[in-house]
């Protein structure tokens, strides 16, 4: 059985242990797993159980098992933002891409989970695209809410999701099925992220007939599960999307939006949110609002920004066993 794998830095500190200072990560955490930009974050899911390895320290992309699919994720570049704690988002994006180049090994592609720009301006899209091209990787984008401020996102879709005028699409790569979703449009007052009826129907259709053993990677901007409803960190109809994915033996959900790493396993589904390349946001409920963390001590900004590497690992562990009853 082949699993998509994301290897996580072991130092990941549980939310409850985060300190107020230093952007919320304890000093011990910082020392254990920070190369530049804080992270290469890579998980291994073997037998459905995540294992972790330090990337950027002892491990490098070259040590990753070869021959399997690997890919990179960046998120929330917010080109156009220039305020505390980051006056130079193009600069930190450039550093992130340099890190991608260092870590990518034989990565096949990269995904960007949205908020490419800060205000959906053409100039900002231009700058981002140029810098991201520096990774030399085929890059697949999904929009963040900051990317669809003008004309319902027309400019973003034309540039970043060619052929998918609504910002959602799917493709296959080395046997893994990738699904990019758009959950940042038609947002309702008091609501969270939103996929909408049409997109859900498309998703159900897209998954129909696929073998349950095909690894699936779903990527969207806002977390598909409810991280913290009070701050809008969730997707109103995310549960319905996840219900279509339930029968698959290996599902990986990659999101952005919250500018910090959170992850969980639920059955065969691994959820992971990425760091931003622009600025960190506070852990749920630890601040009056989810805005940028302004009081990051000098020199520590980069330890709170990062990139993600994802690798598919063919494991020697037990096969993924998916049980169904005759009455299912």
């Amino acid at each position: 059985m082949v699993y998509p794998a994301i290897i996580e830095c072991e130092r990941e500190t549980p939310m409850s242990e985060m300190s107020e200072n230093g952007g919320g990560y304890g000093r011990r955490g910082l020392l254990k797993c920070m190369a530049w930009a804080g992270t290469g974050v890579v998980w291994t899911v073997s037998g459905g159980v995540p294992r972790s390895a330090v990337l950027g320290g002892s491990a490098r992309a070259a040590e990753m098992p070869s021959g399997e699919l690997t890919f990179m994720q960046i998120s929330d570049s917010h080109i156009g933002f220039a305020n505390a704690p980051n006056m130079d988002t193009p600069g930190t994006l450039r550093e992130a891409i340099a890190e991608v180049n260092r870590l990518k090994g034989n990565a096949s592609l990269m995904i960007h989970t949205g908020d490419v720009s800060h205000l959906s301006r053409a100039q900002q899209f231009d700058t981002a695209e140029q810098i991201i091209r520096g990774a030399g990787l085929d890059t697949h984008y999904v929009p963040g809410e900051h990317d669809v401020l003008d004309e319902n996102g027309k400019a973003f879709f034309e540039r970043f999701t060619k052929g998918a005028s609504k910002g959602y699409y799917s493709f296959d790569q080395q046997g893994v099925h990738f699904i990019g979703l758009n959950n940042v449009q038609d947002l309702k007052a008091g609501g969270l992220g939103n996929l909408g009826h049409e997109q859900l129907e498309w998703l159900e259709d897209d998954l129909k007939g696929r073998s349950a053993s095909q690894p699936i990677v779903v990527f969207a901007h806002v977390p598909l599960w409810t991280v913290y409803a009070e701050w809008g960190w969730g997707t109103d109809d995310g549960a319905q999307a996840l219900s279509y994915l339930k029968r698959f033996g290996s599902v990986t959900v990659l999101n952005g939006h919250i500018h910090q790493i959170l992850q969980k396993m639920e059955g065969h589904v691994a959820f992971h949110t990425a760091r931003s390349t622009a600025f960190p946001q506070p852990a749920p409920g630890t601040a009056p609002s989810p805005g940028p963390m302004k009081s990051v001590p000098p020199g520590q900004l980069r330890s709170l920004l990062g990139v993600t590497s994802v690798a598919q690992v063919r494991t020697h562990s037990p096969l993924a066993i998916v049980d169904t009853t005759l009455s299912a």
Partner: protein
Amino acid sequence: MLSSVRRPGRSHWRGSLLVAVVLLSAGGFLRTVNAQEAAISIDNFTFKPAEITVWAGTRVTWTNRDDIPHLVVDAKDPGAMKSPPLDTGDKFAFLFAKPGTYPYFCALHPHMQGTVVVK
């Protein structure tokens, strides 16, 4: 303010004149209020005040004091009122001509909500 107590010895007619004068002034006051401005501040992902009551014909101006952009959109009918993205320091003004209750929200952060009550 209007005394309705009839004092012994005072003519009723004089009391009525007082009332008429006061009413005329009140009418004048109302006209002034109609041309009024009202202000809402956006800070820390919150509209302040969250609920505001104004007379019909008031122009309400939102000012974004937050360091993240916000949008002001009519919650019931997004076409009726939709601001451009407001960066820090940007303002958006809207004239509320008709009485009614107008809930609105931030299209970027939909959990941010407010109401303009127009009398």
